[in-house]
């Protein structure tokens, strides 16, 4: 099967629950995702949280973020796009395993769950473009 769907959400922490719900709905349409769905939902929610926290620094905005799902040939691709401040790729790093402190955990979870993560900055419609893929 193949699938290509997206939805846009307000950039704020109240959207996270709605994003998880949308992700659950999409993943439920992919039988192969059954054993991975809660982890993938965590990765997506963490990436969305990073947009609120870092691309917008927690400030109020009327901007939307877009979450796109593409599934083909057993590869799930999730794109997260936003119009916030351009991220500095060197600053996107997970915490070290032996560094027991809050912070950096979300990026660590994303790295643990997904197979590949790429990040692009554009000057066109969307500024930050995170792509996460997983073979399922």
């Amino acid at each position: 099967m193949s699938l290509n769907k997206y939805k846009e959400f307000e950039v704020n922490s109240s959207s996270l629950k709605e994003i998880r719900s949308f992700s659950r709905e999409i993943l439920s349409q992919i039988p192969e995702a059954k054993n991975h769905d809660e982890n993938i939902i965590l990765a997506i929610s963490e990436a969305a949280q990073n947009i609120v926290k870092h691309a917008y620094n927690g400030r109020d905005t009327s901007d939307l973020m877009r979450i796109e799902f593409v599934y083909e040939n057993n590869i799930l691709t999730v794109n997260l796009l936003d119009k916030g401040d351009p991220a500095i790729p060197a600053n996107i790093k997970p915490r070290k395993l032996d560094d027991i402190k809050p912070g950096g955990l979300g990026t660590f979870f994303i790295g643990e769950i997904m197979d590949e993560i790429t990040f692009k900055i554009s000057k066109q419609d969307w500024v930050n473009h995170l792509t996460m893929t997983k073979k399922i």
Partner: protein
Amino acid sequence: MSYKITEEGNVSTVFLNGEIDMEIREKAEQVIMPLVEAKKEVHLNLKDVEYMDSSGISLLIEAHQKAGEVGTKVVLKEISKSVLKVIMMAKLEQILNLD
């Protein structure tokens, strides 16, 4: 998220439920941290927590560290399967007090 607190001697047990994410973290922090700062032994019952992300895990780390500073402890009780999975993913099962 809703919660309930029971007290027995110096032990405060906080029963949390629902989803603990970035939106809910502050509320959870306002419930847990004053108990820790009051040097209570805090038991967090996580049986009914369906989802916890890095914000919730960060709060558990902060509460654990603060408890150590003030000479008490935070114990995680009846941890739901989904929360345990995230704690283990963060490799914190040897750091936090799991019961």
